[in-house]
């Protein structure tokens, strides 16, 4: 099958040439606009962070102060909050989402696939501020009256689950992030499992493999690269989520590792709550510095995702 060359060997009429140039111009312009916007964003954030960076340097990342009165700022507790909430949410969300993806692609009766699939998409479409409001009104009190006392009773010897139950804290924030991650990872997993060539699955079944063995040894390894990319996508969404987290996490600059019942903060939620009405320039600049750290983490996450996906691609034998 021959591929049509980009430039046709037919004589170019004036109309065709205009179309060629126009297409290239429009697409090129779109890319240029994108690059310019990204560059402007990075410049603005870096420029804003400069005062804080020149005052604190990299010590900002290891300092736990956040004090407007003494003008001392540090990101450590916020970093801990971001990482704990996102990783905790990942641990719950990833198996659940992959299970949903498998269910939708392999195990569900055909009549259930569309409605359940639609419901997963709907969950993804809920605006984060609505989830935050639901978190304050429903999830927070539920966690404080049912979940946290139960955890305290049965797992209270672990410091992470000790402490006084509270409406606002790390645990409701983790649960909200889990709810946000699941639809993203689940719909991508479903597409990935649907894309496994059926000859592979049917061949394995014909050789006597059980459905579980087909999943474990054929389907999942085949799509593991894509699954990792999906997980990274969910992770990126979680670390950047500001509004919904700000409403349920309690906005308190303290280490989340003390107890997940206690209020804490993530970098994104801290920026959201503190940015409006900063008292000193150094505080404002420190919030920009937090934004820089968030950007760096996002960049590292995306690059890591790309590398892992490429490595898995090579391992399976070059099949995209």
């Amino acid at each position: 099958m021959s591929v049509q060359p980009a430039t046709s060997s037919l004589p170019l009429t004036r109309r065709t040439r205009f179309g060629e140039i126009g297409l290239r111009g429009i697409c090129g312009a779109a890319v240029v606009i994108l690059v310019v916007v990204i560059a402007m964003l990075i410049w603005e954030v870096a420029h804003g962070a400069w005062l804080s960076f020149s005052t604190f340097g990299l010590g900002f990342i290891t300092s736990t102060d956040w004090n407007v009165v003494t003008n001392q700022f540090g990101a450590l507790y916020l970093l801990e909050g971001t990482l704990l909430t996102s990783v905790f949410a990942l641990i719950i969300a990833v198996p659940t989402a992959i299970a949903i993806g498998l269910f939708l692609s392999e195990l569900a009766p055909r009549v259930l696939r569309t409605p359940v699939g639609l419901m997963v998409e709907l969950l993804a479409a809920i605006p984060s501020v609505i989830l935050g409001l639901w978190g304050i009104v429903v999830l927070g009190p539920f966690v404080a009256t049912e979940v946290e006392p139960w955890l305290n009773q049965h797992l209270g010897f672990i410091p992470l689950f000790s402490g006084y139950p509270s409406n606002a804290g790390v645990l409701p924030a983790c649960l909200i992030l889990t709810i946000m991650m699941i639809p993203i990872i689940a719909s991508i997993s479903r597409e990935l499992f649907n894309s496994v060539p059926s000859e592979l699955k049917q061949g394995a079944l014909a050789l006597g493999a059980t459905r579980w063995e087909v999943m474990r040894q054929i389907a999942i390894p085949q799509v593991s690269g894509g699954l990792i990319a999906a997980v990274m996508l969910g992770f990126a969404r979680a670390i950047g989520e500001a509004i919904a987290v700000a409403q349920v996490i309690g906005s308190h600059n303290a280490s989340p590792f003390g107890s997940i019942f206690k209020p804490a903060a993530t970098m994104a939620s801290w920026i959201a709550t503190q940015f409006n009405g900063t008292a000193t320039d150094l505080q404002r600049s420190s919030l920009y510095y937090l934004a820089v750290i968030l950007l760096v983490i996002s960049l590292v996450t995306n690059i890591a995702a790309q590398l892992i996906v490429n490595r898995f691609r090579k391992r399976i034998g070059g099949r995209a």
Partner: protein
Amino acid sequence: MRKTWRLLAVSLAVGAVAAGAAACGSSSSSSGSSSGSTTSGSSSVLVGAGSTFVAPLVSQWEAAYVKTPAAVTITYGAVGSGGGVDAVTARSVDFGASDAPLTSDQVTACKSCVQIPWALGATTVDYNVKGAPNNLKLTGKVLADIFLGNIKQWNDPAIAALNPGVNLPSTHITPIYRSDGSGTSFVFTDYLSSVDPDWASKVGTSTQPTFPVGTGAEHSSGVIAAMQATDGGITYAETSYIAADNLDYALIQNAAGQYPKPTNSAVLAAAAVGTTRSDGTIKLVDPPASASAAYPLASYTYVIVPESSPKASTLRAFITWAISSAGQSLGEPIGYPPLPANVVSSNAMLIAKIK
């Protein structure tokens, strides 16, 4: 196929030209005028933003001022004192409102803004404790210890000693504070710093202090909602919420040993003995013992206006009306006693600075 491409190219080109024209148009108007979102030249609208403390009073003013001969429509966004300062610094609003004096950085950023005290009010300490009665008595030191995390339960001996004969449950105390830039936080921490040297050294006074324990929530409505949802919660907010939401509030001991309720007369007693700070703002918290009936958490709230504004005459007229008996009488029923006469007369000088 070719026709589709041509159609696409033409429509995209038209779209690009339209977008460019719109961008050029809006950028020139925003760089040129300093009134931002309001229609330039028209002075029948004033846009303001800021303190939630004064928001109930401003909404009374909004309703009344449009009916006066001046017929100016006031639009006010209660985004918090910090947000109001940011907005007026960016000149995206005509006036800002804050309960806290501008910090030195904010003064520099605002570029010649004048702070005029335009209302008087009180911050109350509200709590939600199942099984405890209304009007529990607290001293400033005990309040500071609660918010420092030294006193953890409602039946702590320190609280019981102040409330003999009262049945206090052993509920855990959850301090709830403002997580956004808040003038009410400034007033509250100013009071605690005055009465407790421990608080002054550990936390200090600020619109966004680092509270050592507790949960943060945004805006007064947020802290009140959080307190109502938490058994054992205690927070601070302006007086108007008590009547509006039927809240339990604490009686705070003043320097004379009395426990005055936050009535208009108690606030006026505090205003009579206010001390002026170096930046011209007036401190009313923790009044001296000579004012025996003074409420210890009273405060002025300020309107922040750029000294040079395209709506100078409208602003001068509005602020003069607001601090006059016509404007101040609207505040009396909702917990904002009228400004003392000496403040009204010294304000005239500040208002004259707006050109």
